């Protein structure tokens, strides 16, 4: 399973790809999946992160998502902001085609 967290990081959100179309989705506070990063729930610390992974494991079993993993975020109010360039790009779309990905919708 992919790992995109730094041991020293405190806040994490959880993402996966939707099985049907591969779309990046984010686990929300009510254990639903959203295409929008700002809907993602924020885990404070390792234990909360592990709980999110348990929820994701069930979604994997239910054939809803694949490849779930935690990633580091900064917290701006209640909104998670990805720290890595990778997750920033994943959350929006290719930086070289602003007409594609989530930024296009």
């Amino acid at each position, binding site marked *: 399973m992919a790992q995109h967290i730094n041991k020293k990081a405190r806040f994490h959100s959880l993402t996966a*790809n939707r099985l*049907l*179309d591969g779309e*990046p989705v984010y686990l929300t506070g009510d254990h639903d999946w959203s295409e929008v990063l700002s809907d993602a729930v924020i885990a404070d610390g390792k234990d909360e992160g592990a709980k999110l992974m348990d929820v994701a494991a069930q979604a994997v079993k239910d*054939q809803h998502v694949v*490849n779930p993993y935690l990633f580091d975020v900064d917290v701006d109010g209640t909104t998670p902001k990805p*720290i890595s*360039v990778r997750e920033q*790009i994943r959350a929006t779309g290719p930086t070289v085609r602003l007409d594609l990905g989530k930024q296009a919708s």
Partner: protein
Amino acid sequence: MYRYDEFDHTIVKERVTEFTGQVKRRLAGELTEDEFKPLRLMNGLYLQLHAYMLRVAIPYGTLSGTQMRMLAHVARKYDKGYGHFTTRQNIQYNWPKLKDVPDILDDLATVEMHAIQTSGNCIRNVTSDQYAGVAAGEIDDPRVWAEILRQWSTFHPEYTFLPRKFKIAVTGHSNDRAAIKMHDVGIIIVEGDNGEPAFDIYAGGGQGRTPMVAHLVGQKIPARDLLHFMDAIMRVYNMHGRRDNLYKARIKILVHALGAEEFARQVKEEFAKGGAGEDLKLPDGEIERIRAYFAPPAYETLPDSDAGYEKALAEDKAFAQWARTNLADHKVPGYAIVNVSLKPIGGIAGDASDAQMDAVADLAETFSFDEVRVTHEQNLTLPDVKKSDLYEVWKRLDAALLATPNIGLISDMIVCPGLDYCDLANARSISIGQMISERFADLDKEHDIGELKVKISGCINACGHHHVGHIGILGVDKKGVEFYQVTLGGSADENAAVGDIVGPAFTEDEIVGAIETIVETFVANRKDGEIFLDTYRRIGIDPFKETLYAAA
């Protein structure tokens, strides 16, 4: 061009049916992702950063207009209106939905296309010279042998689960346009003792985290023994190739560990055993049967020069600029090889829209005996255009934004998808390529610099061939920030070499300036007629280090 026989049709159709069932079972929850992943990879389907990615095979880079039109159709109907031509002479679609992939493969099968051997630990889609069959000075058409290798390797039970992927390239020309020494096995057709084609066979090349140039392991292998000798190589690799460590599983590691001489000895020993070898000896009839598919088209008898073409060259500067860079000599008088640049200034290397693919299909059908080639440098080639048609072809290419006159120049870069699309990447590649292309957009400046191959990868897997760029750029991640390491002096041609790391990596803001400094250093040091690589090989890395890091 090779046409499917009943067996090809059947195996492709059966594979589509099989994969359709697998997708259905996956979506019904009867297969887990762990069970499904190897199955989808066997059908060219990856899961990338934003979506699934489907890689479609273009064997030895040869396509008909109808096939190109189908690639456009797939881009339009199932994807987002474009496709990405790759260094493996394949095409990738970046946004297909899993549920649509069986339909895509079904559509592709109607024009004898598929995604087999584009992924997984098998012998991958065999690549070749984009000028195959039309280049002056060619010993033999490499597509004949690439097709024979394709038929041998497709679904070969012993080679379906190799230690790692296995890439083969074939060239029939002493000027290597297929990067054969950077493949697991590279084959050069040479003249055999009896005047028949024979093969010099190199093994153990490759890029990635351990770049190596292949070693000669078989010399003047007779044509009839090609498969037998290849089988011996594969058997030695399959027996000894490491399966305990993904990073040490490629044949280059084995060849390095054993030593090239010992590896060659073992291959020859395996070859001498015979075994299945007798069954693999190619009957003359079979070679000729395959060769017939690649028979030259019905060329007209023409003078080598054409008055209309010469007039257009004299009167239209833009056409003349394009002709200077994008045409290559054809073996038949009165014809030219047309290179179609997929590197517009500031564009995305290798991308083509559905409309552009349709335009190229039209041109192939009307002006090039219905044939298109995909190059490993992410461009397209129309192999057989009459000189009298060149001006019209250029005008139509220009209308489709496909007439950038930059083949072989600094803006004709190989660029992998990088972090904008790829799940494995550490840094963006495309945006760096765009910035470099824009910085050197002045065509006169590009021509003054001359041949210069810049190659950019977004990670150590080296899909952008950075190791063999005259200037190579490797994206690396340093604590979440993109940096770019530069190598100099690499080459993928007949004098293949792995580039030297010049020094500490550059930030995204610095990298284009660094490339400019390197180019300026070359210009300041070159002698008459030298291209970048000549100068680099003459003066070495130190002058470049000095100018790049002088202020540090």
